[in-house]
C-alpha cells in the first residue's frame, strides 16, 4: 500500500506533464491549471499518507520501480527511498509546491504560455521528487539535472527577452560545472563501493580511507555548491530572477537551491569522515552568508534583494552542515522554504500590483494600498530577520548556537554579522517598499490593487507556516523534528549545554535581529524627516540633537558608509571579476577554437590532402617525360635497361 503511494507521488505530476504537454493546446487554461495543481495536490496527499505511515512505524521504505541500467557489476534501479529526511523534503516540496501552483493560477493569469508554464512547473515537481526520493545516486542525478533543466526552461520562460535567454543558458551551464563534480563523485563511489545504493554505500562506509573520503566529499561538495549557489558558483542565481516570480519562489528559493543541502545531509556519513571538507563546507557557508548579505544591502531590485538573501540563507544551511548541525540545516531549510516562498510571492503580488515595477526606489507607501500583502510581507521579514517566535528565529538561532557551543567562534561571529545585515536589509526593503512617501508615477499609482484571493490565499497559509513553523524544532536541539530526523541525521549536540547559555544565545540573536530592524528604521523612516524638524525646533537641546547627529555621522562614518562601500565593492566584484572570469573563459574558448580552426584548415587538412596536390604536381611534371620524340623514347628504354643492369650488378656483385 505504502509502496504504491510512494510510486504514485512522482507519477501524478508526470501525468499532468504528459497531458498538458501534448494536449495542452486542445483545451482551455482552466483545465490545464486544474490538472497542474490538482496533480501536485494529489501527490501532496500521498505524501501526507506516507508521512503518517512512517510516523506510525518509524521504518523507512525502499521501493524499486524497475531495473534501469544494468550489466556487469553495475546495477542501477529506478528506486525510491522514503525515510524521515525524505519525508520532510517531500512535505516541503509538495506542500510549498502546491501553494505556489495555486498562487501561479492567479499570477500567470492571461499569459500566452500559460499551459507551457504549468507543464514546466509540473516537470519540475517530477524531477524534484525524483531528486529527494531516489534511493541511489543516479536517480538523485536524474532529478539533479532535471531540476536544472526545468530551471533553464522556466528562467527562459520569456524567451523572447534576450536577458532571460542568456540568464537561462548561464544557469544551466554553471550548474553543469557542479554536475560534472557530482558525476566524478558518483564514479568514485562506484569504484570504491561497487554499488550506488545509499543503504549499501552507507553500510560499508566504514572501510573508506580518509583520503578517498575527502575526495568523494569534495566532489560532492562541488555539485552542492553549484546547485545551491554558494561561493564561488552563486552568480547564476541573481540572474535567475528573470523568470516569473512564482518560479523564483518555488525553484530559486524554496526547493531546488536547497538540493545541495539535502545532498550533503544525505551523505553526511561520508562527510563526517573528512574534517577537512567539513571545514571547507562551513567556511564556504559562512562566507557566502556574509558575502551575499553585504551585497543585499545595496540592491534596488526587490527580487534581487530576495535573491541575495536566499544565497545568504543557503550559506547558513551550509554553515550548519559544515559544523555538523544537520538537523538544524534541514530545519532552516524547511523554515526558509516557508518564509522565503512567502516573501517572494508577496513581492510577486507587489509587482503584480504595480503592474511589473520591480525597483524599490519607485515604490513606497504601499502599506495602505495593499494591506494584506503588506502584512504578509511583514511576517516574512520578521521571520527571516530571526525575531522570535517566528520560524526563522528558531532555525537560524539553532545553527548559531550550535556554532557557538561547538566552539566555532569565528564562524559564529561571521554568522552573527550576517544575521544583523539580514535583518537590516530586509527591513530596509520593507520600509522602502511599504512605508514612507510614495515615489511612484501616477499612472502606476492609479492601477495599484490588491491581488485576487487565489493569490492571497496561499500567501496566508505560508504566513501561518512562517509564524508557527519554528515550533517543530522547539525546544532547540530536542524538538520534535530532531527526534524525527534522528535516525537519518543523527542528534546534533549530544553533550548537554546549560540552559542559561542557550537562553543567552537566544537573547543575542534576538538582539541582533532587533538591532538590524532599529537601524533600518532609523535610516529609512526616522531620519528622513529629522532635519526640518530640527530646524523648526528651538535652539535648546540643539547640541544634543547635534551630538545625536554626531552619532549619526559617526555611525554613518564608521558603519554604514564602509559597509555600503564594501557592498558596492563586492557588487562590483561580483559583476566585474566573476562574470569577467566567465567571459574570459569564453574568450579563451574562442581563442582556442580560432586556433584550432586555423590548424584544421591548414595543418591537418593540408597534411592529408598533400597526396592529392602532390599527385597533380607530379602528374604535371612527369608527363613531360612523354615528349613525343621517338629518340627520347628509345633513350628512356636504354636508360631503363642500364638502370636495371646496375641494380642487378649491385645484387650479384658481378
Amino acid at each position, binding site marked *: 500500500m505504502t509502496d504504491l503511494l510512494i510510486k504514485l507521488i512522482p507519477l501524478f505530476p508526470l501525468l499532468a506533464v504528459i497531458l498538458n504537454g501534448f494536449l495542452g493546446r486542445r483545451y482551455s487554461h482552466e483545465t490545464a491549471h486544474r490538472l497542474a495543481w490538482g496533480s501536485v495536490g494529489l501527490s501532496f496527499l500521498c505524501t501526507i499518507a506516507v508521512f503518517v505511515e512512517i510516523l506510525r512505524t518509524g521504518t523507512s521504505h525502499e521501493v524499486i520501480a524497475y531495473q534501469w541500467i544494468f550489466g556487469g557489476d553495475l546495477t542501477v534501479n529506478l528506486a525510491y527511498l522514503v525515510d524521515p529526511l525524505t519525508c520532510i523534503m517531500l512535505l516541503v516540496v509538495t506542500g510549498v509546491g502546491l501553494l505556489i501552483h495555486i498562487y501561479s493560477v492567479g499570477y500567470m493569469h492571461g499569459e500566452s504560455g500559460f499551459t507551457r508554464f504549468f507543464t514546466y512547473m509540473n516537470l519540475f515537481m517530477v524531477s524534484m521528487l525524483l531528486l529527494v526520493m531516489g534511493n541511489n545516486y543516479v536517480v538523485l542525478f536524474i532529478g539533479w539535472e532535471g531540476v536544472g533543466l526545468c530551471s533553464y526552461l522556466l528562467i527562459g520562460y520569456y524567451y523572447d527577452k534576450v536577458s532571460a535567454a542568456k540568464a537561462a543558458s548561464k544557469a544551466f551551464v554553471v550548474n553543469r560545472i557542479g554536475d560534472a563534480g557530482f558525476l566524478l563523485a558518483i564514479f568514485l563511489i562506484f569504484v570504491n563501493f561497487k554499488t550506488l545504493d545509499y543503504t549499501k554505500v552507507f553500510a560499508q562506509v566504514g572501510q573508506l580511507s580518509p583520503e578517498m573520503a575527502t575526495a568523494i566529499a569534495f566532489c560532492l561538495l562541488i555539485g552542492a555548491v553549484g546547485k545551491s549557489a554558494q561561493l564561488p558558483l552563486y552568480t547564476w542565481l541573481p540572474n535567475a530572477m528573470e523568470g516569473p516570480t512564482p518560479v523564483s519562489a518555488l525553484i530559486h528559493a524554496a526547493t531546488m537551491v536547497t538540493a545541495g543541502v539535502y545532498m550533503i545531509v544525505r551523505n553526511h556519513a561520508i562527510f563526517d569522515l573528512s574534517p577537512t571538507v567539513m571545514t571547507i563546507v562551513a567556511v564556504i557557508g559562512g562566507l557566502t552568508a556574509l558575502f551575499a548579505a553585504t551585497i543585499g544591502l545595496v540592491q534596488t531590485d526587490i527580487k534581487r534583494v530576495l535573491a541575495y538573501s536566499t544565497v545568504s540563507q543557503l550559506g547558513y544551511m551550509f554553515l550548519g552542515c559544515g559544523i555538523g548541525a544537520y538537523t538544524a540545516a534541514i530545519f532552516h531549510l524547511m523554515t526558509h522554504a516557508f518564509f522565503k516562498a512567502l516573501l517572494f510571492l508577496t513581492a510577486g503580488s507587489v509587482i503584480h500590483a504595480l503592474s511589473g515595477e520591480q525597483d524599490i526606489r519607485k515604490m513606497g507607501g504601499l502599506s495602505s494600498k495593499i494591506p494584506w500583502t503588506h502584512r504578509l510581507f511583514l511576517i516574512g521579514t520578521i521571520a527571516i530577520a530571526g525575531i522570535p517566535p517566528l520560524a526563522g528565529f528558531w532555525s537560524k538561532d539553532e545553527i548559531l548556537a550550535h556554532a557557538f557551543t561547538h566552539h566555532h567562534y569565528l564562524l559564529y561571529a561571521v554568522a552573527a554579522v550576517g544575521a544583523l545585515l539580514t535583518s537590516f536589509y530586509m527591513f530596509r526593503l520593507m520600509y522602502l517598499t511599504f512605508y514612507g512617501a510614495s515615489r511612484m508615477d501616477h499612472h502606476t499609482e492609479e492601477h495599484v490593487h490588491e491581488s485576487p484571493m487565489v493569490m492571497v490565499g496561499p500567501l496566508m497559509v505560508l504566513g501561518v507556516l512562517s509564524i508557527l513553523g519554528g515550533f517543530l524544532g522547539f525546544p532547540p536541539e530536542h524538538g520534535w523534528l530532531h527526534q524525527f530526523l534522528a535516525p537519518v541525521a543523527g542528534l546534533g549536540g549530544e553533550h548537554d549545554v546549560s540552559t542559561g547559555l542557550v537562553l543567552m544565545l537566544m537573547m543575542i540573536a534576538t538582539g541582533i535581529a532587533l538591532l538590524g530592524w532599529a537601524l533600518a528604521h532609523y535610516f529609512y523612516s526616522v531620519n528622513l524627516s529629522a532635519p526640518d524638524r530640527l530646524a523648526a525646533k528651538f535652539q535648546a537641546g540643539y547640541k544634543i540633537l547635534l551630538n545625536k547627529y554626531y552619532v549619526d555621522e559617526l555611525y554613518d562614518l564608521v558603519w554604514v558608509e564602509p559597509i555600503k562601500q564594501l557592498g558596492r565593492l563586492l557588487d562590483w566584484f561580483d559583476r566585474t571579476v566573476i562574470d569577467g572570469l566567465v567571459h574570459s573563459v569564453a574568450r579563451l574558448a574562442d581563442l582556442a577554437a580560432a586556433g584550432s580552426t586555423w590548424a584544421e584548415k591548414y595543418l591537418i587538412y593540408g597534411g592529408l590532402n598533400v*597526396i*592529392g596536390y602532390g*599527385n*597533380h604536381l*607530379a*602528374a*604535371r611534371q*612527369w*608527363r613531360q*617525360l*612523354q615528349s*613525343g620524340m*621517338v629518340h*627520347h*623514347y*628509345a633513350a*628512356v*628504354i636504354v*636508360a*631503363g*635497361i642500364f*638502370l*636495371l*643492369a646496375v*641494380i*642487378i*650488378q*649491385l*645484387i*650479384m*656483385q*658481378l
Partner: protein
Amino acid sequence: MTFELTMSPSDLLLFLPEILVTSWLCFILIIDFSFPRLPNEQLAYFSIAGLVGTLGCLAWFDFAGITGALFGNMFVLDRMALFFKMLIVGSAILIILVSIDYIHRFKVFRGEYYFLIVMATLGMMFMASANDLLSLFITLEFSSLGFYVLIAYLREDMASNEAGIKFFILGIFAAALLAYGISLVFGETGKLVFSDMKMAQATPGLAIGFLLIFAALGFKIGAVPFHSWIPDTYHGAPTPVTAFLSIAPKVAALAILLRMFLVALATFKPIWVLLIVAVSVLSMTYGNIVAIAQKNIKRLLAYSGIAQIGNVLIGLATGTKMGSDAMLFYLLTYLFANLGAFAIVIAVSEAIGSEEIDDYSGLGRRSPFLAFSMLIFLLSLAGVPPLAGFIGKLYIFIAAIKEGLYVLITVGLINIVISMYYYLIVVKKMYVNEPRDRSPLKISGPIKVVVYICLAGTLAIGIYPQPVTDWVVSAILVFSNVADPTASLPIPPAVIPLGG
C-alpha cells in the same frame, strides 16, 4: 648429321587451333579478293565464326586435357598455354565485333583489316606456346607485324601515321635488343629451349642477355621504363586496334615471361624478384600519377593500363604458384573491364566523334546504359568490390603478402587510391556535368553485345569467382615443381629490406 623428323597425326592434333586459324587466314584473304563487293560485316562474321571455332577447339583441349610438347619443347601446349590462347582468341573475337562499325573509317582495304587482326592473333597464339628463344623472337615479331600495319591503318590520319611510325621504330629497336640478348644468352648456355638451360652461376653475359630479353618483353607489356610507346600509340591508333593492343600482346608476352622466369631462371629467383619489384613499383606509380593529368580518354586508359601491368607484375614478383594463379585471374578480369571500357569509348566516338574526356559530360543523361557500364568497368579497374577487379587485386595482394613483399603492397594500395581519383574524374564528368546537347546516343548492336559480354564477365567473376579460380589454379599446375625457390643460391643481402 642426319635428318630425323618424326611427327604423328596425334602430334599434328596439337597444332589444330593454329592450323585452323592459319587456314582461316587464307580463306579470309581469298574471299576478300574474290568477292570485292562483299559487305565487310559478313567478312567480319566469317572471321568471327572461325575464331569461335578455334575457341571451341581450345576449350575442348582444355576440357579433355589434351596437352603435349613438340620440336624438342620448342612448342608446348600445356593448360597455361591453352588459357592464354583462349584469352587471346576471345579478345580477338570481341575486337572484331567492336570493329564492325568502326571499319567505315577505312577508305580501302577493309578486308585486309580482318586478315591482319587474325594474323596478329595467330602470332600471339604461337607466342603463348613458345618455349625457346628462337620462337620467342619469331612469334614476337610476327605478332608485332600485324600491329605495325594496323596502327597506321588510318592512312589519311596523321595521328595514326605518327603512332604507326613511332611504334614501328621502337618495335624494331626492341626487336634488335631482343636479338642481341638472345645471342648473349645462347652464348652463355649454348641452348635455346628454356627447360634445357642449365645455369650454374650468373655471368654478366647471361645477366645482360636476359635483361635485354626482359626489356623486349617489357616493351610488349608496356611496363615502365619500356612503356614510352604506349600512350602515343594508343592515342593515335584506330580505337579497336588500341583495344586489341591493350590486352592481347600483354597476355601473350606475360605467358613467355612466366615460362622464362619460372622455368629458365628459377634458380635466380631472388635476383629477378627484385628486378620485377622495381619495374612493378615504377609502373604503378608512374602510370597512375600521369593518368591524372590526361584529357583524352584513350591516353587515360593507356596510362591506367601501364599501372595495371604494374599490378600484374606483383603477381610475377611473388614467383610462387599462387602468384601466378593470381596473375592469370587478374588478366582475365582486366580483359573484361578494359575491353568493355574501350568498347564504350568506341561507341561514344562513333556517336559524337570525340575521345576527349570533357565530351563525356552528361553521358549519364544521354545514354544511361553506356554510362552505367562505363562506371562498372572503371570501378572494376579501380578494384572496387564486388567487381572482378577487386577479387583480382585481392588475390594478387594476398599472394604478395604471403611472400612478405610489404613495400610492394603498400605502393600498390596507395596507387589504388590514386587511381580511384582519376577514374572518379571520368565518373563525375559522366554523371554530374551538364551535357552540351542532350540528344540520346544510339549504340550499334555488335558493340552492345560486347558491352553486355564484358559486363556479364565483370559482374559474374566478381560475384562468383569460384570456377575461374579453380580454372587458373589448374592452369598453372605446370609450375608447381618450381613453386618454391631453390635454396641453392644464397639470398643476397639487398633482398632482405625489400622483403620487408
